[in-house]
């Protein structure tokens, strides 16, 4: 690394921070529209409900309706402002891209930047092939000299850990990138991902001016990375610059629909968000660049009062870090980008719900922070919106319950004014829901932002119609689950930190059935209740009840791989014209996928098998282990479990025992020789097979999880 520490910056500089005058004007405009829409909607609802005076249940309905309508208005106006920004002839005064002149792109980048990727039991192949593509893409820019890469591992599965080490070494070897790509494994994953990043900041933060944070499934082009660094250099008042990560790599119907929807509707929403968030945008945890000095100084996260799930360690750290950065005086900006920043989404509905469960708890935790002192008001708004994104499901559920109750206790003869209010409200709500989508679609059909050929634009139009069906069927099911998550969080049921599954491995029918049968039951019971309440009411609520009733088949269909790809449905530009960074990764992943695999038992414990049998992997692991003067457990205990593993195989040991063994340099070295020294009948069948098959399957032990490419 040639460039030393960042220059001392003790107070924020205004470049990059939008002028207060513009920010205030934009927010006043935006929230006036939102406020007006909410007030009109609430007033119409009040007129409709108060025909014969307000009952308790009607007040309840109005109470849950108001925040729901506010949220609907925020989405509506964000999209509309975004569309206006995308189509207006003049430039956006706050456009960060305009701060770069054409000649700036040729100038050398002198700022030192660490590109970090925190990982936790992730797919090793995907992590390192993604990193390889980013590295190569950055090299192609010719400005990669001051960028270093860090894989920050918190993996607690032994095999995963060893495979990461082997992949790191091989990647460095193939790319000739020793001293450019670093691997660090934490012994104790304190405070999860935010703790992992903080640990990096404490150890190496001073060496770098910027830190670009990636997720395990992130992919970014070198061009965008260098541009982001240049923007940060030009705009010294920006603390965090967040890009819009587009979804890629989806194979299931759900994944492709989400990917398509994000590609089509995402840009106007991002432009709209940038319009009113100005210098108080959010950080989403990855695909963003951070100015390290203020981050280290001001963004360390304190624990929240009380115990988990509401208190304790902050789960959704990104929102809080953005708020802390803004509180310290630096801008947090959103950089609307169409290409160059990518991530992957959950493949199945069950995976999506597992992810939402974590996010829900994280966002609900922010409740504490809403009332904290010193925040910028927009940071509070961001927290509230985060909470509402999940709490609104519970509100919608209550809204439907109140509606059912009101239908069961009808007020006779509606007067014309109330009827009129009801009809206007219905029309207005439908407009708020469907107009952004329709307008975005029309924008695409007329401008061809995604696709130029007319046929593709028509296919986009049809795909958009089809995604409406999928989202209509999914929304009520998500409502039930999100409501449950909110209630569980309030009742104190926490979540475990689990690895997100990012690739489809087929539909698990049993899992789907046991996850969704309750939702089906709710739909049936509600329908029976509705039948007795009123047939007209049943008809009105039937779209929701049908979706609940069909939850199981819907979950199976959307989690399957039939997604209409062959008919041209849900296509995105990343699928039709993959950028080079994505194409490189896909080629390498395809090469690995086509290989002959070891027997499943050996594949399952492949990393462990390698560290025990392979002299080079064993040497690598021992070299990377930090030597300790004293060990946590006795030598005789380690010998005993090592013996058990030799005689009975790895399945006879629990994760803790394997971990204890694999953390000790002496035991790992000793194990290697003990295994090779044992006669066949002294070995567990696992090891006997492994010794026989290891050399046959592995032409190079280090390329098991990595593509075999020529050295650079």
């Amino acid at each position, binding site marked *: 690394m040639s460039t030393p520490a960042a220059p001392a910056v003790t107070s924020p500089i205004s470049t990059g921070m939008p002028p207060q005058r513009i920010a205030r004007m934009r927010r006043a405009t935006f929230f006036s529209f939102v406020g007006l829409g909410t007030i009109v909607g609430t007033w119409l609802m009040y007129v409709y409900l108060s025909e014969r005076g307000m009952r308790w249940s009607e007040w309840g309905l109005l109470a849950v309706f108001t925040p729901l309508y506010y949220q609907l208005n925020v989405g509506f106006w964000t999209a509309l402002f975004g569309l206006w920004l995308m189509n207006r002839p003049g430039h956006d005064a706050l456009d960060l891209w305009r701060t770069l002149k054409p000649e700036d792109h040729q100038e050398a980048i002198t700022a030192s930047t660490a590109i970090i990727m925190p990982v936790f039991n992730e797919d090793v192949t995907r992590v390192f092939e993604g990193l390889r593509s980013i590295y190569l893409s950055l090299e192609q820019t010719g400005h990669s000299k001051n960028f270093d890469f860090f894989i920050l591992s918190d993996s607690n599965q032994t095999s995963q850990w060893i495979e990461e080490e082997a992949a790191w070494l091989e990647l460095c070897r193939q790319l000739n990138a020793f001293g450019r790509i670093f691997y660090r494994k934490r012994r104790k994953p304190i405070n999860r991902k935010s703790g992992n990043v903080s640990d990096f900041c*404490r150890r190496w933060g001073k*060496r770098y001016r910027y830190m670009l944070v990636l997720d395990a499934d992130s992919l970014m082009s070198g061009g965008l990375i260098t541009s982001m660094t240049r923007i940060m250099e030009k705009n010294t008042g920006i603390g965090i610059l967040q890009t819009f990560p587009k979804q890629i790599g989806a194979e299931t119907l759900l994944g492709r629909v989400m990917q398509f929807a994000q590609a089509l509707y995402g840009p106007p929403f991002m432009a709209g968000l940038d319009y009113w968030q100005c210098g108080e945008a959010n950080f989403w945890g990855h695909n963003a660049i951070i100015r390290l000095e203020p981050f280290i100084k001001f963004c360390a996260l304190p624990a929240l009062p009380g115990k988990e799930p509401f208190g304790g360690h902050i789960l959704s750290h990104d929102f809080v870090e953005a708020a802390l950065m803004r509180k310290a005086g630096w801008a947090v900006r959103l950089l609307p980008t169409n290409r160059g920043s990518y991530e992957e989404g959950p493949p199945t509905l069950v995976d999506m719900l597992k992810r939402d469960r974590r996010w829900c708890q994280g966002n609900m935790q922010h409740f504490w922070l809403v009332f904290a002192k010193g925040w910028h008001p927009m940071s509070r708004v961001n927290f509230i919106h985060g909470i509402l994104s999940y709490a609104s499901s519970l509100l919608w559920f209550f809204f439907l319950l109140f509606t059912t109750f009101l239908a069961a206790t009808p007020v006779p003869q509606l007067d014309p004014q109330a009827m009129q209010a009801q009809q206007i409200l219905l029309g207005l709500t439908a407009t708020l829901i469907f107009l952004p989508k329709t307008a975005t679609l029309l924008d695409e059909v007329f401008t061809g932002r995604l696709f130029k050929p007319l046929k593709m634009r028509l296919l986009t139009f049809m795909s958009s119609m089809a995604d409406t069906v999928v989202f209509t069927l999914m929304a009520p099911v998500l409502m039930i689950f999100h409501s449950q998550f909110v209630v569980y969080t309030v009742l104190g049921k926490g979540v475990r930190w689990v690895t997100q599954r990012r690739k489809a491995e087929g539909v698990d029918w049993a899992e789907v059935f046991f996850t969704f049968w309750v939702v089906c039951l709710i739909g049936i019971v509600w329908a029976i209740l509705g039948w007795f309440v009123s047939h007209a009411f049943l008809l009105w609520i039937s779209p929701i009840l049908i979706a609940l009733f069909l939850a199981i088949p819907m979950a199976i269909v959307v989690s399957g791989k039939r997604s209409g790809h062959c008919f041209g449905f849900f296509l995105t530009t990343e699928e039709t014209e993959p950028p080079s960074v994505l194409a490189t990764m896909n080629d390498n992943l395809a090469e690995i996928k086509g290989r002959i695999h070891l027997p499943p038992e050996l594949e399952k414990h492949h990393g462990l098998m390698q560290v025990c049998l392979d002299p080079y992997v064993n040497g690598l692991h*021992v070299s990377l282990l930090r030597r300790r003067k004293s060990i946590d457990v006795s030598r005789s205990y380690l010998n005993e479990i090592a013996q058990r593993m030799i005689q009975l195989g790895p399945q006879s040991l629990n994760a803790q025992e394997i971990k204890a063994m694999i953390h000790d340099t002496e035991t790992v070295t000793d194990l290697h020789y003990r295994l090779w020294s044992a006669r066949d009948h002294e070995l567990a069948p696992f090891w006997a097979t492994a010794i026989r098959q290891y050399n046959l399957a592995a032409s190079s032990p280090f390329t098991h999880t990595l593509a075999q490419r020529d050295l650079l």
Partner: protein
Amino acid sequence: MEAVNIQFAPETGTEEEWNEAYARLADYFRSYQLHNRIRRTQLILETLRRAAAAHKTDTKKTPTAHSIEQARFMLKEWLGAIYSDMNLNESQLEAGGRLGFHLSGGPARWPNFFLDKENLPQDMIEAMRSAVRASGPGMQVSKMTPRDIDLGRVSEVAEDTFDTLGRHPILRYSILIGIVGAVLTYLYLLFR
């Protein structure tokens, strides 16, 4: 390495045991990615010869165990000669040395000099010595200390309430049951 005598007639141990030791050594040296079969065979026979001598003095250990032990001795001697002045302890010498051989491309470039401490090509020594890697750049430690966030009055009240509810799950569930009961009672009164 001196010319290997092809004749191998151990005085102790059975033929089956020595055959098993041979097969294990073959697998072991293959795991070093030594694709030169002649060199592998040379190494196997040399190791077996040493193992046979060792087995004569200690028959409690199996020929397989003796063979791997001898292979380890040979490796240590060889690495000791290469890294003689680098002040490495035994564990570092073995682990780092093996890794150094791999990273320098040793299995492909110098297979005939593997474990041959009498003939050490200078370029191999230099490549292996320079291949000692570190897993990260030198640390420059920073302080990253969390600052307390003043959560304000509302949060204090909420915290106390949640704390109380958290400590008394019975109270928490009683409140929940109370709310559900009140709703059901209200519904009953309306519909009766």
